[in-house]
C-alpha cells in the first residue's frame, strides 16, 4: 500500500546524494586559489557597499498573503472535486454544484475586494 512512498523517499535520497556527489567532485577537480576579491560578493566590480540583508518593499509580502489565502481556499476544493462525480451518481449533483458555487463566489468576491482595494496594482 505504502510502497509508492518508499519509491518517493528513495528517489529523493538518490537525487540529493547525487547532487552532493557532483558538488564534492567539483571541489576535488576544481582549482582552489582563493583571494580576497574573489571571495567578495559581486557588485559592478566595485567593493560591495554594505550588506545585502535589508528590509524590502511591502509589495512582496502582500503577494505572499494573497497567495496563502487563495491557495488554501483552492486546496479545500480538491476533496470536493474528487468526490463530485460520485455525488452526481447518487443524484446529489446539483446540490454539490450549488455548494461549490457558493464557495467559489465567496472566493471571487474576495478577489474583487482585493482588486478594488488596489492590492493588485504594481507601481
Amino acid at each position, binding site marked *: 500500500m505504502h510502497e*509508492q*512512498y518508499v*519509491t*518517493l523517499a*528513495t*528517489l*529523493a*535520497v*538518490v*537525487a*540529493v546524494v547525487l*547532487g*552532493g556527489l*557532483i*558538488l564534492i567532485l*567539483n*571541489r576535488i*577537480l*576544481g*582549482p*582552489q*586559489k582563493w583571494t580576497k576579491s*574573489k*571571495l567578495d*560578493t*559581486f*557588485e559592478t566590480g566595485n567593493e*560591495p557597499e554594505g*550588506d*545585502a*540583508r535589508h528590509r*524590502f*518593499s511591502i*509589495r*512582496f509580502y502582500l503577494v*505572499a498573503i*494573497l*497567495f496563502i489565502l487563495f*491557495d488554501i481556499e*483552492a486546496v479545500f476544493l*480538491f476533496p470536493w*472535486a*474528487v468526490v*463530485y*462525480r460520485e455525488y*452526481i451518481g447518487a443524484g446529489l*449533483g446539483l446540490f*454539490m*454544484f450549488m455548494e*461549490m*458555487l457558493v464557495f*467559489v463566489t465567496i*472566493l*471571487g468576491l474576495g*478577489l474583487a475586494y482585493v*482588486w478594488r482595494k488596489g492590492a*493588485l*496594482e*504594481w*507601481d
Partner: protein
Amino acid sequence: MSELMLNPWIRALFWGLVMITGVMTVTAWSTWFERKFAGRMQSRMGPTLVGPLGLLQPIADACKLLQKEDLVPDSADRALFNLAPVLTVGFAMGVAAVVPFTPTMLAADLDVGVLWLLALSGLMVFPTWMGSWASNNKYSLIAAMRAVAQGISYEVPMVLAIMVPVIMTGTLSLSDMVADQQKNGWLIYRLPLTGLIAFVIFFLASLAEANRIPFDIPEAESELVAGPTTEYTGMKFGLFYMAEYIHTLLSSAICAAVFFGGWDGPIAPGLHWMLLKSVILFVFLTWVRWSFLRLRSDQLMNLCWKYAVPATLALIPVTAFYTVYAAGKGGV
C-alpha cells in the same frame, strides 16, 4: 527479475535509479537541443564543434563546469549556500516520480499525484530564495524577491487550473487521469472545452514557475547580472541550470499526461506516444522562449491576478455544471 521487483525496497531503488538516470540524460541533451534550436532561430549554427552536430556538447559542458573553481563568498551563509543547489535538483527531480509514462512504467503511482506535483512546484521557490539570501548579494536578493513573488503568484492559477481535470476525471492520481482519458477522450478536446483553457493557463503558470522567458524577470540579465545564481560558480551553478531544465521537461510531460491523454494513441506502444507528446510540448516551450520578450514585473502580476485567477475561478463552475448537465442526459 519479477520476483525481485516484488520486494518494495528493490523496486524503489530500481525506479529511483532508472528515473534519475533517464531524467538526467534527457536533461543534458535537452540543453543541446535548446542551443541548437536557438541557434537556428537566430540564423546561427549552434554547437557544432564537439562531436557530430555538436552532440557531445553537454558532456563537454559538464566536464568544464566540474573543473571550475568552487567559490563561496566570505560574507555568505555557507550551509544554506551549499544546500540550495542540491535541494533545487532534488525538488525538480521529485516530480519525475509521479509522471505516468505507461501504465506500468511509473515510479510511484500515488493516489494524490496531483497534490505531490503541486507541493513540489510550490517548494521550488525555497531553494531559489535560500541560495540568493545566503549569497548576501543585492542582485541575487532582488532577483529572489521577484522569483518568489512570481512563483507563489502563479501557484494559484496553477492549482485552480488543474482542478478542471480533477473534476472531469474525478481522481487525483495521474495514471487514473490518463486511463479516464483513454476511455472518454482527451481533456484537451473534451466538452465543454474548459480543459483547453485550463491547459493554456496551467502551461503558462508552469513556464512562470520555471522562470523561463517570457516570465524570466528574476534572471533579467541586463538588470540583475545572473539573478539568483549570481554568486554561484562551477557545478553549483550547473545544478541550478539543470533544475530549470528538469522542471521544464517534466512540466511538458505532466501536461502531456494530464491534458493530452498521456500514453493513449493508436498503433505505436504507449511509451512512444507519451514521449512524443512531451517532446512536442517541450519544443513548443523552446520555441516560445526564443520568440518572445520578457514581460515587465507589473504586467506579469496583472496577467496572473487579473486574468489567470478570475479565468480559472470561472472555469471551475462551468466544468462542474457541464458535468452535472451531461450526467442528466445519461452521459457520465
